[in-house]
């Protein structure tokens, strides 16, 4: 008897430790990246790092603004592209579709979610980039290689589609069926019900899901790196090349040890990414948890 209780206690203690250690990973990542980025933080003020646009590693000048702007452009474009499609798809699946249709749609979304980043990159290079350089860019500029903000935004938009759709489906399913029935019985059409009851009630969930998708899009590396053009400079339009932060880190890891402060600067870039993603994730998850709780 005692042995069994002892076993139970030991197991509990061990598992508690494992859980706490796993939670502390968040803190460990933050501290590790901060320690590594301290040299560059000491050499320059935070504001000149974040808002400076001079990127000259050899002279020790690290202004992240062009990269930050690259990330912002690409991410916003991706969300602008993915949001309407995923909203409509999710509404269709939860409000209109028969079980038969769902059986086709879910595996397709699964595939979309499962494909690795590098595959999207290959597809972007083979399909999106030539399309932009041959069919889109000639209407606006003299010449474009196609490796642009637009290409990165489209590829990224497709990558966050499955995440958005599955989050939206969850949010919409948490709207009580009685509300829909009440609306329909008052003579509202299905679309009116979907828009004015389901979507309106889910607004906070939609917002939270979008924020989550933004943070996912921000950190996507390889696919974006392959189609964004990787030119250091401020992007001024959709047909400019850009250089988002993850691409910067991934592209320069080889040479970062040979130039002083360069490694530290890249770790600072990772820290920025981590902090922003952390805040976005915390906020949106807390909102989504609330919605889930209402549902129960």
């Amino acid at each position, binding site marked *: 008897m005692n042995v*069994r*209780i002892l*076993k139970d206690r030991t197991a*509990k203690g*061990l*598992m508690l430790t*494992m*859980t706490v250690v*796993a*939670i502390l990973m*968040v803190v*460990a*990542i933050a501290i*590790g*990246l901060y320690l*590594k980025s301290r040299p560059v933080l000491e050499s320059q003020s935070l504001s000149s790092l974040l808002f400076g646009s001079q990127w000259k590693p050899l002279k020790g000048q690290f202004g992240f603004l062009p990269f930050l702007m690259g990330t912002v452009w690409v991410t916003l474009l991706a969300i602008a592209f993915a949001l*309407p499609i*995923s909203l*409509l*798809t999710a509404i*269709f699946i939860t409000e*209109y579709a028969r079980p038969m249709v769902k059986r086709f*749609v*879910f*595996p*397709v*979304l*699964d*595939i*979309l979610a*499962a*494909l*690795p980043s*590098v*595959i999207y*990159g*290959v*597809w972007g*290079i*083979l399909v999106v980039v030539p399309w932009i350089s041959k069919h889109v860019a000639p209407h606006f500029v003299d010449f474009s290689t196609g490796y642009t903000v637009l290409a990165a935004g489209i590829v990224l938009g*497709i990558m966050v589609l499955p995440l958005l*759709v599955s989050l939206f489906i969850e949010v919409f399913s948490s709207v009580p069926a009685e509300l829909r029935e009440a609306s329909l019985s008052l003579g509202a*059409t299905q*679309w009116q019900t979907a828009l004015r009851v389901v979507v309106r009630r889910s607004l906070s969930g939609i917002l939270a899901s979008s924020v989550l998708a933004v943070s996912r899009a921000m*950190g*996507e*590396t*390889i696919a974006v790196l*392959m189609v964004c053009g990787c030119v250091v400079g401020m992007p001024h339009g959709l047909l400019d090349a850009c250089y988002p932060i993850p691409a910067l*880190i*991934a592209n320069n*890891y080889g040479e970062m040890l040979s130039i002083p402060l360069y490694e530290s600067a*890249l770790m600072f870039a*990772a820290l920025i990414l*981590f902090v922003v*993603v*952390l805040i*976005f994730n*915390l906020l949106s998850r807390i909102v989504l*948890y609330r919605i889930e709780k209402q549902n129960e």
Partner: protein
Amino acid sequence: MNNKKNKVTVGKRVKEFIAKSLMWISMAIVFVLVVSVLWTIFSKGIKAMSWDMVSKLPGGGFYIGKEGGFLNAIVGSLMIVGASTLLGLLVSVPVVFFLNVYLTKGSRLAYVARLAFDVLFGVPSIVYGAFGFTVMIWFGLRTSLLGGIIVITLLIIPIFIRTMDEASRNFPTGILDACLSLGATRWETLKVVVRQIAPGIATATLLSVGRAIGDAASVMFTAGYTDSIPTSLSQPAATLPLAVFFQLSSPIPEVVDRAYAAALVLTAIVLLLSIAGRFITAQFSRNKVS
């Protein structure tokens, strides 16, 4: 009066029609995108595909278009993914069990833990790569198989935990109560719980394997790249996504073709995993008590 009423219904119908068409269009866009991605990879990859590609190591002059294949990348990927999946399971099964059996529903710790794992799930793989790199330097490690395994393990633990946790959420408390009332300790309910959430564990494993095998950004820093198959943990290891990535940037057409072949192999593996996941969920959730 009657006329006015008719107009309203017509307006409603038109709106309904427009909305429906828009929804069909967005569904169509999703389908077309999936088909386009798969077709592009397949049609490009199949041309460059040959038995040599998947069965030979890169020979001399491989990167200027001569003999060889990318077996090194396939084996490297499998090594990293296999080891980190095992490690990941070892860590995450106890954590999920603890969250669901030892802690009560309203527990503060459970809430914080779930939040933390959701946040970790959202951390970009490039950040894991950078963090893993700093840790490796700390311990004096160079880019190696071990480094890759550690980082991929860190990357997939949150996926494991969140997916399994999701599966055990619907776990009927009645079963647990029955076990406890028969005098079992919480630890001893493990057998029952694991059997109940087995399909969840299987799906989580497939999902994590899929994510682990396709991730390039994190292994870039930590596992490095090499032309041979690593024979010890301290040697660098090649991975499939990086094989695609590096060969694609080559100016030589034959090498680029090989990138497509590697992409095809990677896609095929990931698709198989995804289909298997669906199958398992469909097959085994029937036997579940709930």
